[in-house]
């Protein structure tokens, strides 16, 4: 009879956790991104959140919403992160943080639909536009380096990207309105 190595997590709980966490990762990232200004912070808080959530996973009641539960943890971790960086970053004051977070949870489903709409809209971009966005949003890529390499001015690149973003948001709004009408 094999004795499992002591560092192995119980496989069922581990699998359940990973499945839930991965399923909610986008929602959580979006939730955090509306509260935190930098991707570095979002990544850091996501990491912390996954650790804390796993540690407390036995307390999670499967009959309740994983998103609400994980978001509560993420929110707390985000606050901790903001407090830590309050000096060197521009940090939303607590009342705004709370409003954005509360509303974000309240409209989680709407935001999910919004993301789906955005995805559809992204597919409609022409290949070059898609490629540009892909490159520009690759983690670690800096706009000025990218501009230098593509032979454009930073300003021009920035404008192009902003225009594409606005296009996508408008497209998503239209799509959602259309969806609501039918």
């Amino acid at each position: 009879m094999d004795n499992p190595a002591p560092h192995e997590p119980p496989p069922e709980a581990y699998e359940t956790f990973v499945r839930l966490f991965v399923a909610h990762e986008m929602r959580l990232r979006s939730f955090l991104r509306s509260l935190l200004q930098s991707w570095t912070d979002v990544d850091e808080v996501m990491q912390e959140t996954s650790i804390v959530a796993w540690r407390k996973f036995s307390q999670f009641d499967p009959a309740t919403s994983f998103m609400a539960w994980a978001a509560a943890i993420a929110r707390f971790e985000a606050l901790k992160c903001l407090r830590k960086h309050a000096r060197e970053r521009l940090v939303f004051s607590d009342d705004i943080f709370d409003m954005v977070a509360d509303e974000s949870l309240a409209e989680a489903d709407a935001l999910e639909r919004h993301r789906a709409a955005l995805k559809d809209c992204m597919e409609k971009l022409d290949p070059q536009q898609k490629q540009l966005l892909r490159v520009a949003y690759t983690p670690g890529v800096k706009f000025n380096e990218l501009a230098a390499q593509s032979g454009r001015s930073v300003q021009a690149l920035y404008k192009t990207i902003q225009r594409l973003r606005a296009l996508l948001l408008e497209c998503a709004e239209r799509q959602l309105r259309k969806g609501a009408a039918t």
Partner: protein
Amino acid sequence: MSANDTQRLIAAWTDGSISREDFAALEKILRNDGHARSLLRREANLEVLLREGASMDAQLGAWHENSASAPPRSIRRRQSLLWAMAAALALLLCLASFFWGGHRESQKNKLVQQPTEETNTGCAILTRTVNAAWEGGDTAKRNGDTLRAGPLHLKSGLAQIEFFSGATLLLEGDAELEIVSALEAVCHHGKARVRVPPPAHGFKLEIPGMKLVDLGTEFGLEVDRQKQSAEVQVFEGEVEAHPEGGAQVNLKKGEGLQSQNHALTRLASVTPEDFAGAEKLDSLNAAHTRTRHAAWFDWTERMRHDPRLLAFFPFQPQNEWDRFARNAALPEDPLKNGGIVGATWAQGRWPMKNALEFKRPGDRVRLRIPGKYNALTFAGWVRVDGLDRKYNALLLTDRYDSGAPHWQIYEDGRLMFSISYPDPTQPENQKAKRNQIYFSPVVFNRSETGRWHHIAVTYDSQSGEATQYLDGKEVSREVSLFHAPGREIIYGDCELGNWGMPTEKHKFPIRNFNGRMDEFAIFRAALSPQEIKRMWEAGNPE
């Protein structure tokens, strides 16, 4: 403020270019305008999607085809997502391996039930070694040891290190390695072969002159401090090399890179045969195992003749269903063969050696040892898989009568030897007893699960001194306050691994041992510390 302004401010906040003044303006808007907050969340949504999209397959080629300069740092985010998860979990494992322990129903992992949970910090496990000599001599590492972040110096031999992330590193001495985390290590000197399965993609290895990021592969590295050279050779998959002060190089199967005195050279071919792999470790390991087993066997052939032996069980069955634990002590005395109940044959210290496995509450070996004695030694090899009971039986006499010894492991991992005699202050009361109990310090904790240990106890009824040993070393030596010289030791019916006749209404009658036993000896004398040490040396599986 116009809608345009709001959008501009949110965009500036999102891309991090917002000024202090604009931030104040944005805060004002967000505080008062629910629509602005909703817009912010939508921008965040878009951000997440764009970043995710970029991550899915960062095909930078098209954008950079005309550019010869280095592309922006390509981080493979498809893997990175998995990697982040793996990293987070690896970190978890590093922080505390046992935080789930308290919630499990299974007895298997519960070696000790304690209110405060035992923790085991580490980043990797030393899984296999062959002739390994470590810096630090006596504090040498053993197979199964958890390795924490920090330096390792393998002076000679081979050692296989498995990181909690899943990456495996086979180190050839003389080598100096520094473990940074479950996903990162630095090699200062020596040779190693690294294998990285998908969950550990992104495993980082630093060697002088360059950093390597693994994209799922097998590679070798060799660092020579004297020659100031370091090289990497890719045998499978792909490795990202980031040389100091140079452009990133992606190395594919069959490619290599050497750094010597800050000069980089691409290697045209690789020599995987120069790097010891799992096969070499296997064959060396097998040879080592055979040697160890043969040495143990020779020793038992001599040991059988020791006249002080009352019974000696090497646990070598004649067939799979052998229900006898055969007494190997000479002259042969079949009456001292043990009867196996429940317990099954399993692998012992070596693949070619059996052990008895005790799992269920009924598992046991029945023994009968007649006679009266003045001293005793119990010694054996055990693998403790769990301490499920308050008292976990090693050798217990059925009745805990006057002079009958009990040897068990207490729930907290201490060895516990006890023997009781009537209370001399109450001669009229037959039942009044004085219990001489001898505890060792804690010798078993969860980190010791599944590992073979030699344990021994000696007791002398003249001196009243009981000494207990773990792996050839004395861990406790004590004379009981209740000791009176010259009282005899008796056995009669007794059991290995369980307690056959719990006294009526006893609070803790279930005492079955959870683990394996591979060799158990009972002597009529208290062996010396040197003799115990030799027993351990002779039977040491490693």
